């Protein structure tokens, strides 16, 4: 994983905040606490890509809708080098799923309470996916859609679907483990596999779409 606050850098997690609302950035900055250091800020996608390139942060907190290309563009350009968590107001947007499929490690709602935000970001910095119930619900819907339209290259296993449903219903990894009689670590592995399958299916769908429409 790109960032590991435990072993790689012994200091606080180096964070870049990307949001076109300064008031929001200052709010998040004071919420993050001592374990995080905001090393840079950007107010649009272009600026964000430059700042991330120059500072190489451990973690990026990025708004979805911004001028000059939204969070999706930032993810597409920088997702491979750093962990990007999308922060959004609404949970019903389709492009949210695109951002996750493009390589964001997850997303959080802007209404998330400070303590929860810190916990989730700490896990994200360690390379864990930030898998909120709302995201699990979106992914479930996406796989239902894929199955209805075509048979997905990589369908969810029965166990993965169970895990996904538990997370969507609001269970923590520990609770999911208790309910399904598996270790929390196994739950995490399932989640990672699910996200990989999502990305694979998305990519495959794009390729098939391109072939069907004669785009090279």
């Amino acid at each position, binding site marked *: 994983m790109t960032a590991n606050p435990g072993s790689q850098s012994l200091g606080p997690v180096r964070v870049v905040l990307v949001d076109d*609302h300064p*008031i*929001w950035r200052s*709010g998040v900055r*004071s*919420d993050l606490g001592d374990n995080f250091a905001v090393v840079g800020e950007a107010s649009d996608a272009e600026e964000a890509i430059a700042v991330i390139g120059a500072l190489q942060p451990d973690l990026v907190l990025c708004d979805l*809708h911004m001028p000059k290309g939204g969070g999706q563009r930032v993810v597409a350009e920088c997702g491979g080098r750093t962990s990007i968590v999308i922060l959004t*107001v*609404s*949970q*019903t947007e389709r492009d949210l799923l695109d951002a996750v499929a493009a390589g964001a490690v997850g997303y959080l*709602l*802007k*209404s*998330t*309470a*400070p303590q*929860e935000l810190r916990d989730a970001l700490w896990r994200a910095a360690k390379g864990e996916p930030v898998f*909120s*119930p*709302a995201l*699990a*619900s*979106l992914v*479930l*819907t996406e796989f*239902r*859609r894929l199955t209805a339209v075509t048979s997905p290259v990589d369908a969810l296993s029965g166990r993965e679907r169970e895990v996904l*449903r538990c997370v*969507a*219903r*609001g*269970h923590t990894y520990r*609770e999911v483990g*208790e309910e399904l009689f598996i270790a929390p670590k196994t739950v995490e592995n399932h989640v990672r596999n699910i996200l990989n399958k999502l990305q694979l299916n998305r990519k495959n769908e794009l390729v098939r779409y391109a072939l069907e429409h004669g785009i090279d």
Partner: protein
Amino acid sequence: MSNPVLAGTIAARIRQAGDSADMGFVHGILRAIAAARWLMLVWAIVGAVVSRSHLTRPGTAIAMVALMGAITAGASFAVATRPTILTRLPVLVAELCAGVAGLLLDVYVYEPERVQSLVWAWPSAVILTSALVLGARVAVPAALILGLASFFGDARNSLDSWGVAASSKTALFVLAAVIASYVVRRLRVAEREVSTAKARQEVGRALHDGVLQTLAVVQRRSNDDELVALACQQDAELRDFLFGETQPDRSLATGLRDVAAIVRARDQLVIEVSAAEDLPKLHSAVVEALCGATREALTNAAKHAKASRVIVFAEPEDDGVFVSIKDDGIGFDPAETPAGTGLSQSIRARIEDIGGSVTLRSAPTGGTEVQLLVRDR
């Protein structure tokens, strides 16, 4: 919305958009009528020239055509500068009088033998304009008056066939009045609805990016409970107002968000609603039962379970829906709590009434989860 100034301003903005779309619509039709006037003027001129040898009173005919020309030019000028003039009652009455006079004179200029009608369809302009502006209640009487005028005009001339001719013309005028006012009324409503919806969307987008974001910050960052409560309430009400989530025939997703907004504002509980996009269309009784049960469950979470965060989840399930309400509260021990008493009673009653089932799960450490399963017949 409890902020009357903001709500009033937004409502006025949206209404304004509807009004201006409506004005545009009215102007478009007035322009079309003005163009039709020119066509009918050309008809009158050509008719008068072709049948000039039959004109027994050419002076009157020329005056008539000149008057028609003047009205036509005037109407076109008004459309280009101040179209609303054409929709004023005195103007409409004057035009109606001119139409009546024209229909009466039409025969007079050819007496004793009528070969041509100069005025012919001319009065339809005033019928259409009044249908547009004042509706059938005024347009139909206007059509009858003009029909009557043409009746008297024709009666002077040929006594054997005037009855049929006059009544068919009257019928045509009335028909035009009725159809025009009906179509115009429907179109105006549609046009207004479309542009109000568009304006609502625009206002929504603007506020979504600004005000709602700020409210989210306040809700999350403030230590002032009263301020947080106020921000929550405004957030819920603003969303409600913007996205019009109060329609009686709401979808399950909308209903669940409504319910969450109400409890969130009342009990300052963090509630996340994730409803799948592909929920089936449900009977409104099913939607209301599920929303009612969810509201009860949320209230329990706030009042009894001492929860701080609740997840509401809904997804399609075979031929029905599954809804779960999970909190992070103190939970209860199912072994020690007799099933179906107190808190679950109101939830159970609602769901079993529509043929669904309720599962209550809790561990003393893991909060409470209420699961609702309903098959839609």
